[in-house]
């Protein structure tokens, strides 16, 4: 467990770094693909419960320190996605071994579609209504497509790096 947490911490920091250095520049229709949301969702689907929550919190908070949007919003959305991933993973849905190949990408795409909406809704709860003025729908569509494409290779990476240790202890 300690090894998994340590490895996931390192990987999550690299995920944040890729988000900041690469994805924030490499925009699709001016939308940034939110790798920090996809990563904990996949960890959850792979059954790495604690690691998924930790990655969500760490990655989200790290990104929030670089954004001018309300502090903690990215982390909250990441935690929700990680939790949903864990619930599905516990039911054996989205597992790379047992499910059809398209299940993980479809779950990821749904997560990518809902996450931006959740983000602006949580922003409204924090009385930040300005987030609605942006292209929420565009962000939902782009993230859904990107999550669909990236989910399977990243899921293999997630399982290879951190999940096996978690799964044997489940």
């Amino acid at each position, binding site marked *: 467990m300690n090894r998994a947490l340590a490895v996931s911490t390192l990987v999550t920091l690299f995920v944040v770094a890729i988000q900041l250095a690469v994805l924030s520049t490499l925009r699709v229709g001016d939308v940034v693909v939110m790798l920090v949301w996809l990563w904990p969702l996949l960890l959850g689907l792979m059954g790495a419960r604690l690691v998924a929550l930790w990655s969500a*919190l760490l990655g989200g908070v790290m990104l929030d320190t670089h954004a001018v949007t309300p502090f903690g919003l990215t982390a909250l959305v990441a935690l929700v996605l990680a939790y949903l991933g864990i619930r599905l993973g516990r039911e054996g849905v989205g597992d790379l071994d047992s499910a059809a190949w398209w299940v993980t990408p479809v779950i990821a795409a749904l997560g990518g579609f809902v996450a931006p909406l959740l*983000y602006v809704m949580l922003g409204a709860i924090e009385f930040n209504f300005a987030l609605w003025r942006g292209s929420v729908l565009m962000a939902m569509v782009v993230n859904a497509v990107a999550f669909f494409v990236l989910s399977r290779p990243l899921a293999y990476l997630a399982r290879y790096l951190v999940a096996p240790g978690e799964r044997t202890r489940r």
Partner: protein
Amino acid sequence: MAGVALLIILYLTTGIASGLRSAANVVITPFTWTVNEVARPVGHLLSGVLNYSDVVAQNKRLRYQLGQAQLQINENSGAATTLGALGKQLNLPFVGNLATVVAQVTATSPTSFSATIDISKGSDDGVLAGMPVVANGGLIGSVLSTTHHGATVRLISDPGSSLGVTFGNGASSVVVTGRGVNNGLGASLLPLSTVIAPGTLMITDGLAGGLFPPGIPVAHVTRVLLNSGSSTYGLSLTPTADLRHLSYLDVLLWEPST
């Protein structure tokens, strides 16, 4: 759930959150640097290979625009002198006379929910929060926060941005709000009696206590929107500055209180 509780506590205790921001920056910087060192050469190589003809064409266009700008500077020097004198008489600061700090854009917003950029100059160079930033022929935003060697600029297209502008020889004013980089700017609640047409230039109003000095070009009107039964116009605006291709910019050393 513990994580959520922790975040709520952090959000409520702004001081701790602020400290956490600084600490997180220290932690993430080596990772960002590493990724940058790997990704940048690859990105440059791909970009160079894929966009070579575009770069050559853009170079030619830029040379032409540079020549045009030089010509305009020469033509405008007389007008600037007159305007400066008028501003002095009216006790208004003139943008052309304000000291500036040239800065380079170092990063863009990490998410698509805000429109900000990081720049290479900070408080050590005289850059302070609230200072206006101009580039590419118009206002692009204002400094949001600074560190010793850098600053974050909130672009006028940020959904949280709003500023007062004037048009029609200063006869009318309206508040312009950001809608995200892709969606330009918007304005609403403009009385139907106002005379306005697409193409109208909006400039900062510089009202007393305002956040910007007067006379900085902000946006052009692209569409005048009128809903049936409404007693006011809405406006769709395009920033005069190209906010998508920012590399170098000027921070005006002007504070709202001055």
